[in-house]
């Protein structure tokens, strides 16, 4: 028993040195419910960054765009292109949803990698990318589900549910299952990628504090961007799929 306690203590000591904190949250109490404060704080920062830069860049659009306006026009073109490719000609009303998904996830992921959150000490848990938390990714995935149901129902009315027996009625269970797997895979893909990326970086930094983690950090930046794009593209694809006529 002493050995057990001893080993636990040494492991805990090692763990404390490495400074890895997984699943540690700073809890706030709001009306009898708990919230993860660090997620809310970082998401506010992300929203502030997005809105602030958008206001500054688009405040006074020029016919011949300035540098920042050019960048934002490029981003908007990119989002429109993604939406148009996945949804088709009626992509117009969905640009804001797809674009907000992409920008929020992208800026969240990159903020986790680039902003020095660790400077700010919390009493419990630590600040990290908001997409590091399962609540955020599930929230976004559920919104996507609601969005594609809304898209299908407004486009086709109750005929939308005809797609469940579309190729043959035998596939009904699988088609129903799809509505659950879609948000599940969306949320867990994002959550797992970002959490794993941050963990790998933290562990590597704790082992070798210089130079070695840099390629992994760069890879993390790349992964973050790809994940944002994948989430937005898949959301657009689901919306487009539920809007297109079934043959």
């Amino acid at each position, binding site marked *: 028993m002493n050995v*057990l306690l001893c080993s*636990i203590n040494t492991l805990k000591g090692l763990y404390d040195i490495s400074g890895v904190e997984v699943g540690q949250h700073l809890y706030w109490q709001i009306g009898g419910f708990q919230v993860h404060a660090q997620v809310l704080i970082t998401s506010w920062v992300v929203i502030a960054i997005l809105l602030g830069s958008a206001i500054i860049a688009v405040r006074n659009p020029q016919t011949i765009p300035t540098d920042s306006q050019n960048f934002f026009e490029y981003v908007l073109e990119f989002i429109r292109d993604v939406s148009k490719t996945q949804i088709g000609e009626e992509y117009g009303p969905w640009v804001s949803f797809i674009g907000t998904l992409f920008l929020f996830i992208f800026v969240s992921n990159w903020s986790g990698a680039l902003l020095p959150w660790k400077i700010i000490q919390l009493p419990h848990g630590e600040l990290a990318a908001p997409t590091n938390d399962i609540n955020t990714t599930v929230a976004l995935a559920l919104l996507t589900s609601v969005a594609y149901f809304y898209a299908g129902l407004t486009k086709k009315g109750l005929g939308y549910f005809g797609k469940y027996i579309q190729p043959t009625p035998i596939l009904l269970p699988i088609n129903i299952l799809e509505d659950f797997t879609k948000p599940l895979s969306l949320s867990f893909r994002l959550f797992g990628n970002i959490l794993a990326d941050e963990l790998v970086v933290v562990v590597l930094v704790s082992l070798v504090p210089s130079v070695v983690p840099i390629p992994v950090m760069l890879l993390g930046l790349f992964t973050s961007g790809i994940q944002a794009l994948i989430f937005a593209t898949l959301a657009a694809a689901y919306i487009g799929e539920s809007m297109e006529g079934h043959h």
Partner: protein
Amino acid sequence: MANMLMSSSKPFVIASASLSSSTTKPKLSIPQLPLPNLTIKPSKFFTLSSSTLKSLSLVAATSLALAPPSLAVEIEKAALFDFNLTLPIIVAEFLFLQFALDKLYFSPLGKFMDDRDAAIREKLNSVKDTSGEVKQLEEQAAAVMKAARAEISAALNKMKKETQAEVEQKLAEGRKKVEAELQEALVSLELQKEETLKALDSQIAALSRDIVNKVLPTA
């Protein structure tokens, strides 16, 4: 794995706290530091069970070692898959962000870009239209040039004819004049020839007389 190791000390405290009949979970008293909790509870535990410390710690340790599934559940709940009010708050924040970005960014800039595209297209089309106009103007200019050229060539021809007639007239005049002069000159030449011949005749007579006188010494 690290997760399990990390929080393996925490359930120990929780278990001991529940053993010491305090039902409040340490998680629920949140905004304050958890550190005081950690310092207070072991002391409570100490005072309560100072006599049976060894047996209790043994129980705690064995319960820890023998019940890994419940431990795992505890960790999962407390750590990674901890759903709570954060989720709906994030939904609300996202919807707010979508609304705000749409009002600040997507709609205005998108409209601006579309308007600019439309303006450029319109300008391009109008440029294409003026190219037709330019062609018409070019044709007009070509017609004007043609007319002018015809006019000029007619005038040139006329002038050429006039000049030619004038020149011919002058030429004829000159020829006439020259012929007259030639005639005159010929006439005067003839006259002079006759005179010279006459003069020569008289001279011939004198000369021949001289010659005869010299050759025939008559004297």
